[in-house]
């Protein structure tokens, strides 16, 4: 599943949710759908979490560099 794309997983999850909400599934099918849904939700969550961590890391890394300039800049922009 790892190579599965996030968007595909989201789409699948959505389909599963809709199928379940329609309520026409047999016990076995709804169980299978639910399980698949849980897996997909987990997968998506993890993907997002990873992405979020990566973003946080990159942002933190770059925050060190900047942060002096904005102040001065703001001052200038305001004084105008």
């Amino acid at each position, binding site marked *: 599943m790892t190579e599965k794309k996030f968007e595909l997983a989201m789409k699948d999850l959505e389909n599963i949710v809709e199928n379940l909400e329609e309520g026409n599934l047999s016990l076995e099918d709804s169980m299978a759908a639910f399980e698949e849904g849980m897996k997909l939700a987990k997968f998506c969550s993890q993907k997002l979490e990873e992405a979020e961590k990566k973003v946080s890391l990159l942002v933190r890394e770059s925050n060190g560099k900047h942060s002096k300039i904005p102040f*001065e*800049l703001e001052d200038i922009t305001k004084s105008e």
Partner: protein
Amino acid sequence: MEEYNQQPDVYSVSQLTNEIRSLLEEQLDFIWLEGEISNFRSPVSGHYYMTLKDQKSQIRAVMFRLQARYLRFVPENGMKVLAQGRVSVYAPRGEYQIKLDYLEPLGSGDLALAFEQLKQKLALKGVFDQDKKQSLPFLPQKVAVITSPTGAAIRDFLKVLYQRFANIEIIVVPVKVQGDNASSEMIEAIELVNRNLEVDVIILTRGGGSLEDLWAFNDEKLALAIRGSFIPVISAVGHEIDITISDMAADVRAPTPSAAAELLVFEKEILIKNLFQLEKRLTATIRSQLNNQAITVEHLSKRLKDPRKDMEDTLLRLDDLHGRLVRTMGNNMSGLRTRLEAGEQRLRVSSPYQTILLSGQHIKLIRKRMIMVMSRLVKDKLHTLTLLEKRAIDLSPLSILSRGYSITRKLPEKKVIRRARDIEKGDRFQILLSKGIIEGRVEKSDSEASFDK
């Protein structure tokens, strides 16, 4: 400043204002303007606010204290002036105005005339043509400043740089900025820098002075050298009001040395600002995207209906069915049991006992009747017999014996002896009495003897 744009075809006010601003500010940067001053005022800030107008139109104008203090005259309402500046838009109020860098009263003296003539000549040569002007480097990092190392200009210039913490490398190329050879030194310096120094921009500058002091900059050859420089040249000579030929020939004119420095710093600060904005947009966008997706995932996860709700119903249904199954079976069984027991009860009640009982009594009765009949029969017969016997006995010939008669019979014939001659001496005889029998032998027989004898 720039908003994250989600729907490109609809402007936000800020976006539109920004658009207007960049249009105006890019197109109408560094323009010359003639007009009459009105509504002049100067608040405590030291900035000059005025309106420039002609017969038909007017435009609001401001000159900041930094530039205003270099003016050698105080503007007055009604004064006709030549102004130089750039159009800017004040976003918060959506107003445009012109920020003035230079202002001079119309009409001046001899040097001015010579200046005008040279200006005319060079203009004709196209030295001042806008299309020949180079734009400032994108990222000015290394700058050659051609000036007097001891003058006010370098001091003002560096002061601005220090104040703004701009890390720009400065190489001061020392020249005379006044008097003989000043022009040629400056020309040489320009060529030297072009030849030997890897700089992003050249700044030709000196501080304010009289028209005569600044005359070295109104040199045709210098103007041509400036024009010929491969490295973009910023000219910053004197004060705002001082316009020199080199200013006009330069790729960029800064009103003062400080302004030149500010220009550099400003370029870089703009870049930093842009970069910062871009990074901010980048981060904000990715975060909002991730956030939206996370919200979607969470929403979907919430909608991912727990099948146990349905299962509860099913379980209730199952329990109901199970209960009905057991109950029905129990009822059916007890129904059968009841039916069976009723049948059995009726069977017992209709058992042959009654028949047996009645038949038994019947037999008893019949037997009784039979015994009775039989006993009576025997008794009757006996009675009849007894009567007959009695009658026989009553008629018996032996009945006279009771009166004392007896019957004698000769033995063994048992023939009744009626006459003596019927028996002889020695014969045996028997006498039947009323009671008992006597037997004897004849001793004497007298047939003639009679009773009466």
